[in-house]
């Protein structure tokens, strides 16, 4: 069988500020993932100081840090990525944005069996 590979756009043009989190995404069928976080613009404050990280969950409701961190893409067009394996069934990306900082973001998952 040919391996399944899917691109899922999980956050599109969403303003990330404060304690930002992408919607939970169930993808246990995939053995590997690349998380892509792209800044679409509308940058306010200094989001470059934000801490973005990958989280995993047993049930899509309770989240723990997976251990992977991303350098927050703070300029329009900037993109950060991380390669993941052994992430179980649910993925999301969170970011603690500095006070007064925000940006419009695009979060994409490349998922492969």
């Amino acid at each position, binding site marked *: 069988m040919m391996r399944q590979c*899917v691109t899922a*756009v999980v956050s599109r043009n969403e303003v990330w500020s404060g304690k930002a989190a992408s*919607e*939970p995404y169930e993808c*246990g069928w995939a053995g590997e993932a690349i998380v892509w976080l792209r800044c679409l613009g509308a940058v306010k404050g200094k989001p470059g100081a934000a801490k973005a990280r990958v989280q995993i969950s047993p049930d899509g409701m309770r989240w723990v840090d997976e251990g992977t961190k991303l350098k927050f893409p703070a300029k329009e067009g900037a993109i950060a990525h991380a390669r993941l394996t052994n992430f179980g069934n649910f993925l999301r990306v969170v970011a603690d944005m500095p006070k007064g900082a925000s940006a419009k973001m695009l979060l994409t998952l490349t998922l492969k069996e």
Partner: protein
Amino acid sequence: MDTLTAMRLANPKLSRFSPMSRIISFDDFDDGFCGYTQLVGNYEHTLDSMLAGYAQHTHPQLSNLANWDSGTHGSFDGNYALKLQTRPKRGAQNVALKRLTFREPGPIRLEFYFTFKPEANELRLSETDVRSIGFLYDLQTGFEKGGTRVMPHVRFLNALDGKHLQKWQTKSRTTAMLPLGTEGKTVTHYHLSPTDWEDLKNGEQKLCYNEIPTKVNWHYVRYDFDLRTMRAISLQCNDRQWDVSGVDPIVIPAMRNLWCMLNICFFAEADTDKRALFYLDSVCLSGEFA
């Protein structure tokens, strides 16, 4: 029993369906997304021009219906179902669709098995947290003068404002068409606005809803539509059937670039600030043509 029927009844993938003579698509989500993707709203030059109703949509998921208290539930057939998940906000919607075109304007039959639940983040039944689940066709006639775009909408209104209503509804009107951008090529309308839903006559139906929000049971729907007359024929859910030939679909003037469009859309709506989860496994589209 004729040979075709016997072959289908002997095939465990198809034996729970009653397709017309030609199967156009059969979507078993153990095989992947089968062409279902998120409904992205129209825009021009900037994503900011997308209507809010569409901007909220996210990608469908392949789910094994994992629960915090009981583990994986699994799907009707195998492990995976297609999952539509709304955001955790009252009135939030999500839509997944498959984009086809048709070659024979005749009767078509959509059959699918579905179930729904809210996110199980409370230790209570939560039976009124999902507002509705539903489906629609987005159709356009073949190229012709005076052609039309036709959008029959059907939803099961499970609950509204906390009331457990459990009834089928249809829609015959959409919102005004709005131009997008500056090039004169793109327009949009919000056909899933909360307005203009009408009760189907005798459309109340008590669906099996298991005792806690981590148990699901699968339900069957069959919807017959005629692409020649662009009118619905009948609707069935489990043991109930309705003649819907008198129900008007949404009809608007044809668009210049959508001839013979045959899109199948599924949608979910939340009635509380809790994610609504709508699962499908499987979907069979068939038609009556040689």
